[in-house]
């Protein structure tokens, strides 16, 4: 027997760690520091190229790792319609080097995409019940896919309310859509701002006050809350005060992410990996951890 053994070539990097090339199809500003862009899979023109990536089907609440060439990656929630298999839509706030780079891209420019990753908002569990979506600031984009899914089969849900808190009137996202949602008779949309301008005719105050007044039956309702951690904590507690069960309130957590697939260790929040066990959690599962500083 030949003492030299035959070894199969050892596996190379899998798709989960390597960005798929997409291109920016359209982009527009939502506010002074927030933009939305629509991505489509790039056609790879090399002769030995693998077949074009399809916009991977995603569930509401999931995120992609978006790669800015040579700069880095950021986890960004998908904010488009899960039923749309052609376009990948993300709403991004420019807060650092990678998001600023992405914000400067125009139609035709490349973006790398890894994902979709993470857990999803439990839209199916809300069928037959009242549903309240509570969004604070940049927390509205990750909830928009829920609204799209719900409106596509509206008759399956009870009362549906969207409560949106923004900093100022000029810093609201999806303004046109909000207007059209507001005009629907089968949707309660309440918007409040922290600071009003003279022309603002709507509510003023923190979004927790909208939770107190929300037109839902708390006993059977499901709530989905998204925004800065402190805002989610107070909004969730307000929902519990109204009688919504803590297993039926869901929040979307955020932590530092490098891989997005549960291997780099950065996103640990207590014993869970936010990229894999989250980002969507029942509030009951994170309530105690949220009370501990620096977890």
């Amino acid at each position, binding site marked *: 027997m030949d003492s030299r053994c035959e070894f199969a070539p050892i596996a190379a990097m899998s798709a989960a760690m390597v960005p798929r090339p997409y291109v920016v199809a359209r982009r527009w500003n939502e506010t002074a*520091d927030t933009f939305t862009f629509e991505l489509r899979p790039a056609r790879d023109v090399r002769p030995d190229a693998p077949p074009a990536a399809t916009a991977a089907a995603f569930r509401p609440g999931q995120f992609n790792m978006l790669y800015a060439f040579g700069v880095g990656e950021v986890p960004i929630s998908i904010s488009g319609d899960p039923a749309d298999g052609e376009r990948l839509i993300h709403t991004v706030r420019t*807060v650092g080097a990678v998001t600023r780079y992405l914000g400067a891209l125009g139609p035709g420019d490349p973006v790398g995409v890894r994902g979709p990753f993470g857990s999803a908002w439990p839209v199916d569990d809300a069928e037959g019940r009242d549903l309240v979506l509570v969004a*604070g*600031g*940049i927390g509205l984009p990750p909830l928009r896919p829920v609204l799209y899914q719900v409106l596509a089969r509206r008759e399956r849900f009870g009362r549906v309310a969207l409560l949106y*808190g*923004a*900093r100022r009137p000029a*810093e609201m996202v999806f303004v046109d859509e909000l207007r059209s949602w507001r005009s629907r008779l089968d949707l309660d949309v309440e918007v*409040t701002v*922290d*600071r*009003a301008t*003279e022309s*603002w*005719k*709507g*509510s*003023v*105050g*923190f979004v*927790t*006050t909208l939770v*107190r*007044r929300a037109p839902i039956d708390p006993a059977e309702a499901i709530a989905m809350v998204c*925004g*800065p951690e*402190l*805002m989610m904590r*107070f909004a969730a507690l307000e929902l519990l005060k109204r009688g919504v069960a803590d297993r039926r309130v869901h929040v979307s957590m955020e932590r530092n992410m490098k891989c997005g697939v549960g291997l780099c260790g950065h996103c640990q929040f207590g014993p869970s990996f936010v990229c894999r066990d989250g980002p969507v959690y029942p509030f009951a599962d994170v309530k105690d951890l949220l009370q501990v500083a620096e977890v």
Partner: protein
Amino acid sequence: MMRDMTALLSASPVFAGLDTDQLDFIAGCGWNVHFNAGDTIFKFGEPADRFFVLRGGDVSIEIRLAGGPARRIETLGEGEVLGWSWLFPPYTWQFDARAMSGVRATAFDGSCLRDKCENDPGLGYELMKRFAGIVATRLQATRLQLLDLYGQPL
């Protein structure tokens, strides 16, 4: 009419848990009011001798700084209590309140209730607990507003 008022009161969270006698007394201090959009409900500096439980419509809490237009700080809606300055010295309004839409509310005679509370500490304690809770909730919400959580990270 009194019975209706008492029934209304016992359904409101701010009066929940009070006994019938207490509710009857408070009901006796209350009357229904209505404001049109734009009406001033109370103004900064005026004697604070009333409070309201809002039954419909939106109210804006505002302050007019020197020379400028009114700055809206907060809005209140159905089911919320408007006004606590009747309970604490100097018993004058610290802000303006204006109806943003047609507003229906139940108004209560604050100075009458205050006198009663001085003589009936039991009722006084019950009302103080409830209004302290309202002030605490408003303070928490105001703090969250102040934190400017949606602002750019520092």
